[in-house]
Every structure is written in C-alpha cells, then in structure tokens.
C-alpha cells in the first residue's frame, strides 16, 4: 500500500519491532506505538505535556522543528540526548518518515 510507511521501533529491551503506519489517519508516532501495544504510555494524549513517549531518532530523516512545548517537556525528562531526543507525539506520520528508526527512551520513575 502506498499510503502506509514502515517504521522500526526498538523497545527498552532492545527488541526491534517493524510497524506499518498509515499516513492518512492523522496519527503520530506515539499513537502508532500504542496501537501496536508497545510500552508507550502517552499519558497526556499527545500534547507534549508529559514525556512518556520520549524516544531517540536513529535515522537522518527530516523532522518537524521542535515546538517550545516539546523543548520544555524534554527539559523535565531524563536521559535526554541533545541530538536525537524527541517526543513521539510530536512526530506526525507522513510519507517522508518511511524507514524511520527510533529507540524508546528509558522510563523515568
């Protein structure tokens, strides 16, 4: 199908999951992870108000710029990597993200 893309999510145990994500459902990466029942809480529902979908982007895809909200939230998060950390909920699924690889950040207490 041309309107789905492939994304690889590496979970906290290091296991890779190949996911197929629709680009026409107005979804973001956090929601895709949840729909595959990966251990992503998404407490705030996708408003960059928690950091339970914090992940490290492993590929060179062009991503949307970080909003102030996202930067602020990453400030409160732990295990943040300045170069690769993002909140999954702020990455809308579109064709450009085909082949994206992300690693879930450790859960903080």
């Amino acid at each position, binding site marked *: 199908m041309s309107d789905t893309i492939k994304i690889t999510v590496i979970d906290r145990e290091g296991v890779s999951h190949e996911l197929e994500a629709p680009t026409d459902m107005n979804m973001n990466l956090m929601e895709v992870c949840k729909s595959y029942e990966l251990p992503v809480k998404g*407490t*705030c529902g996708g*408003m960059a108000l928690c950091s339970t979908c914090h992940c490290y982007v492993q590929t060179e895809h062009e991503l949307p710029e970080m909003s102030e909200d996202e930067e*602020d939230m990453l*400030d*409160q998060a*732990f295990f943040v990597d*300045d170069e690769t950390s993002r909140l999954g909920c702020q990455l809308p699924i579109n064709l450009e993200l085909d082949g994206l690889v992300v690693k879930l950040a450790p859960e*903080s*207490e």
Partner: protein
Amino acid sequence: MIETDILIIGAGPCGLFTVFEAGLLKLRCHLVDSLAQPGGQLTEIYPKKPIYDIPGYPEVLAGELVDKLLEQIEPFHPGFTLGERAETIEKMEDGRYKLTTNRGTVHAAPVIAIAGGLGCFEPRKPPIGNITDFEDKGVEYIIKDPELYRDKRVVIAGGGDSALDWTIFLADVAEEVTLVHRRTSFRGALDSVEKVMELNETGKIRLITEAQIVGLNGNGSLHEVVIKHKTAGEMNKETDHFVPLFGLAPKLGPIADWGLNIDKNAIEVDTFDYSTNVEGIYAIGDINTYPGKLKLILCGFHEATLMVQSAFKRIYPDKKLSFKYTTVNGVQGFDN
C-alpha cells in the same frame, strides 16, 4: 479519626463529582489527595487547556471545570485531606474500613471509592544511581520549609517555574545557591527568568547551564554533587542540599497493595456498580478498567453516579431508596 460515609481517594473530577451524587442521597464524603489542591490531572497537567467534550459546555478550561465542580459540591460540605497519600486500608471489627495516610491521618468509612486516576502525583526523581540513599539526608524533591536551607549551600536542578522561583527565593535565605539546567534557555515565566539572570550577574546565585547533575557523593549525608557540563566535562561541587525540581508524574503507588484485582495498572470492576473484588471498595474514573473502558471525564461521572447507588445500599441495607430528579426538589445541601 475522620469519619464519613464515603471516603474518596483522589480529588480529581470523578472524585469531586461523587460528592454531588452522594449528597443527593444524603451521604457524606471526605476526599484524600496527595496533591495540595483538588482537580487531579486537570489542575496538575492542563489547567489552561480547553476541554470540548463535557456535555453542555462547548468549551471549558480544565481549571474552570474544577472550579465549577467545587462550586457544585459546596452545599454538601465535603471534607478534604490534601497533600497526603492514602497508604493503607484495613477492615475494622465493625465492618468499616480504616484508611491511614503517609502522614498518619486516620479515616474511617463503610465505603471506599477509589478515584485515583493514573495514580498519585509524585515528584520525578532524576536517574542518579544512589539518589535514594540521600533522600532527606541532603536530597529533597519538594521544598516544604525554606528555613531548612538557611545559611546552607543548595544546588537546585531544573528549568521550570518551580526551579526558578525557588532559586530566587532561596537567594536571600541560603548561604549559596547554584542552579543547574540542561539548556541555556528556560521555560518558566519571563520575569522569573530575567530575575535569575540578574541574580547570576550580580553574583547572588550561580547559574550553570548546559549541565546536569550526574552523581552524588557523601558519607551518610550529602557532601557534594557531580556536575557534568556539555563541553567542560565533569566537576564536583560541595553542597549541603540538592533539590531536583523536575515536576510531578503519576504513579499507581500504594493502591497496588490493597488486594484488588489489577490489570495493567488499573483496577478491575464490575460495570453493574463499579465495585471491585473487595466488598465495599469501589473504583471509578481513570483508575478502573472493564471491557470497553474509555478514560474520559464524562464516563467517570456516569460511573460515580451508579456507584453511589450501590454504596447507599451497602451503608443502609434496609432503607428504601427512591430515585429523584434534581429538578423536583433542587439541591438540598447539608446544614453543617
């Protein structure tokens, strides 16, 4: 001992609305919440966000909805134990439950309604291996009494309003204040940011940006923190206190140990009356689970309404309960 009819754990929207529905049946309620103010997620996470799916309100700010709920339940004079976490539940000889908080406040009621949402909001602890060894021995996640820091050396970490506000406040109290933040910009209120910059320039505090605390050293009590700077590497800094301020996050907490059936951090209930597997203990709102569950405020309100009917029958097994619309008699509150 605080005595009531329905003891509600969690003062989020569902706990608050329970007071209203219980009040219509002349049942009294008391609420316990680990947060210092009522409102649960609405107050703690998104007070300024508009909600669009509360029936009758095309749009309402979360904080406003909490204010309205408080106004609505006021005639029923609910009691509050705020800033305390419900810790243990025991069954007493008379069949009622005794609930004790982490601060030792004791409550008793024939019915417990758990409206604990996603769990108690607790300070987020930075992932520093031995941090728990120094809790209350130099490491505090919440500033309860600023006098503790008088003439002491304090290192604060974080970039939000509480980190900025406490830095400003303690600048006059502590001997030395160091604020460590991961980035160069701050997300707190602009005038607080400016004030912190000014205090730094005048040498009243020390600001270290692009840095994080990565280690703690001490023998019994905290002696120094290890600060890792993005480019300058690690350095040790002697201090009496380390106060990491990284906001709050919900954790299921003690509820997990109360003998209730739990599935994926949520309490299993019977949708007939939202009762749990333990008689007299109910669970409503985000904390419960059943086939088809949706974590919505609207659904929690419905659950609360059906739950108090069952609670009434448990408290007054022999009394008849007649169902009345509020339009018939209006809201008849309690006199005291």
